């Protein structure tokens, strides 16, 4: 047997003897490699997760010389190249914003000592570019020795700068809104479905004289008191039911002054349109009301003061004309009659102007009643006969349907008189003015006054309802009206919820009409 053969045998024998062991070794190696692979994969996964969630991991070996291990994401967060970092606690703490450092140290010490189980802190740290970012830092002591001293302190840091900035912006906006609402000259209170106050502004406290504690979170009944609550309860309920109410109210403020308020109750809805709360807004309209009262007073005084001298003039002229001071010559009679007519015209002007003022200002409450319309038409025609006799026209009432209208009788007779007066004025002598009424669709009632006059010139049509608008109608008739009749008529009809207009009548002449909401109710006997 050669040496070489022997060597081969030896190796083979050894191999054969070793083979079970080698197999075990190989298996062990494979297993080790697998474990290493697994560890590396886990590490990759963790890395990916940290990067994805922008979390930085810190691991502080508190036993081994204050060295802190930080994940690569930490450096990325701060604006450096990613690399694993090792630093000391001192180095890390030096990045914390000076205003936050004490807080951070205290919290860390408390956690290390075991006074708090978890470290949870929001503070600022300096980036590579010397700007600051906000981080949410969370961690805990993961290992302690037998004496309870911390060995390891680990956790995560998250960049929450965008959230903090957004929150700050929101807070700032909220403060601005709060200031805006507090400086608004309207009192505001918001209450929820349970009628508890959710929100109020400063003006509400000033108006009611209550403290914020007496209002916040309390039920409306408790806030305003039993008596007041009885008065506002229907509005509170209605608003929470989704309805809006607006009305005027007079109250006493904490100083004992009478305050005029315009009050609005309104539902507040969520994104799905459900009513979740209601708001009450009160505007102080005392100054407006004072002005109104002043104007009312002025109108009353002006009315009296203007009419008093007119009465004397009108009276003296009447007596002169009546021959109290002796028979007048034809010339004197003519002059007195001019003075008289102008005196009367001035009276009409004053009356109409004050009247229009009252109606447009919404004063002079209308007395609304259910009216037998044909009777009202007859009355208007009867009372107009006197002043239109001189025009030589006759009024004809078309047999009116049995209609009822809701309105103010005196004011509607005023409208009819104005239309009749105009119709008579523009009609040729001996002609007929026709008055009619009929039911329109939707239960409206149309009343019309039709003349046989020349019609309304094209250029005048758009201005006809304006104040002091008078058609050119020849020297002798121009000065008879005040020029306010149709303006007043329109105000009255519109205040009664109706509309007024005119059309060229077929066969010549003009038909003025006004429509009022009709009713099928019976007139109370």
């Amino acid at each position, binding site marked *: 047997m050669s040496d070489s053969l022997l060597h081969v045998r030896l190796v083979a024998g050894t191999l054969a003897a070793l083979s079970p062991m080698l197999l075990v070794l190989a298996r062990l190696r494979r297993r080790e490699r697998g474990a290493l692979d697994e560890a590396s994969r886990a590490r990759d996964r963790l890395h990916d997760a940290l990067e994805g969630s922008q979390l930085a991991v810190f691991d502080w070996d508190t036993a081994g010389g204050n060295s802190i291990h930080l994940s690569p994401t930490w450096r990325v967060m701060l604006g450096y190249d990613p690399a694993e970092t090792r630093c000391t606690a001192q180095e890390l703490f030096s990045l914390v914003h000076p205003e936050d450092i004490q807080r951070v140290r205290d919290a860390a010490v408390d956690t290390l000592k075991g006074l708090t189980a978890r470290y949870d802190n929001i503070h600022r740290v300096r980036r590579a570019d010397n700007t600051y970012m906000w981080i949410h830092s969370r961690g805990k002591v993961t290992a302690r020795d037998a004496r309870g001293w911390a060995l390891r302190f680990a956790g995560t840091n998250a960049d929450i700068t965008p959230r903090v900035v957004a929150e700050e912006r929101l807070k700032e906006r909220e403060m601005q809104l709060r200031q805006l609402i507090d400086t608004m000259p309207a009192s505001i209170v918001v209450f929820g479905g349970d009628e508890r106050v959710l929100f109020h502004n400063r003006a509400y406290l000033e108006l009611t004289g209550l403290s914020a504690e007496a209002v916040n979170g309390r039920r409306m009944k408790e806030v305003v008191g039993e008596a007041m609550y009885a008065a506002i309860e229907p509005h509170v309920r209605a608003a929470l039911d989704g309805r809006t109410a607006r009305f005027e109210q007079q109250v006493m403020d904490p100083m004992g002054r009478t305050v005029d308020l315009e009050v609005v109750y309104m539902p507040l809805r969520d994104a799905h349109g459900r009513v979740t709360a209601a708001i009450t807004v009160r505007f102080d309209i005392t100054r407006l009301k004072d002005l109104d009262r002043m104007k009312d007073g002025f*109108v*009353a005084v002006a*009315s*009296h003061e203007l*009419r*008093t001298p*007119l*009465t*004397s*003039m*009108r*009276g*003296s002229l*009447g*007596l002169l*004309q*009546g021959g*109290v001071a002796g028979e007048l010559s034809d010339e004197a009679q003519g002059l007195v009659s001019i003075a008289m007519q102008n*005196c009367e015209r001035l*009276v009409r002007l004053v*009356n109409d102007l*004050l*009247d229009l003022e*009252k109606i447009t200002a919404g004063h*002079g409450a209308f007395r609304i009643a259910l009216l037998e319309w044909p009777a009202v038409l007859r009355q208007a025609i009867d009372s107009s006969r006197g002043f239109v006799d001189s025009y030589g026209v006759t009024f004809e009432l078309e047999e009116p349907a049995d209609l009822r209208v809701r309105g103010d009788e005196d004011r509607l007779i005023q409208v009819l008189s104005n239309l009749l007066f105009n119709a008579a004025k523009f009609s040729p002598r001996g002609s007929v003015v026709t008055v009619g009424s009929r039911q329109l669709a939707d239960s409206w009632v149309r009343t019309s006054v039709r003349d046989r006059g020349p019609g309304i010139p094209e250029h005048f049509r758009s201005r006809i309802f304006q104040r002091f608008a008078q058609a050119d109608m020849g020297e002798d008739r121009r000065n008879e009206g005040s020029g306010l009749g149709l303006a007043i008529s329109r105000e009255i009809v519109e205040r009664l919820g109706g509309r007024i207009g005119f059309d060229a009548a077929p066969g010549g002449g003009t038909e003025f009409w006004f429509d009022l909401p009709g009713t099928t109710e019976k007139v109370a006997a």
Partner: protein
Amino acid sequence: MNAEKLTRILLVDDQRDIRSIVGLALGKIGGFQVKVCESGEEALASAGDFAPDLLLLDLSMPVLDGVGTLKALRARGLTAPAVFFTARLNAKDAEGYRDLGVLGVIPKPFDPLKLGSQLREMWSKR
């Protein structure tokens, strides 16, 4: 209210112009016997002696106004019906004064030639 015919009228108005105009209209033209007073106080002093059939009172007067004068006259037992004069806007309604024996309200300005017949008509419906 015992007179059969309206003859004696007591006029109370603080304005001289109106007193002369109404005095002429009712006296010279209307043929009534007219007693003219320039204030409520004067009316109170002379109403009893004059024994009017009708009182014609201006509503707006200083110190004692029309309503005040009428109340004071009623308190002294004067029962003659009354008519108010007024230059106020929309005070044509006598309804509110019905309890005081007011027949009507005549708005100023008025037609002096028709004043007498107006009063007679109101008086006849008393």
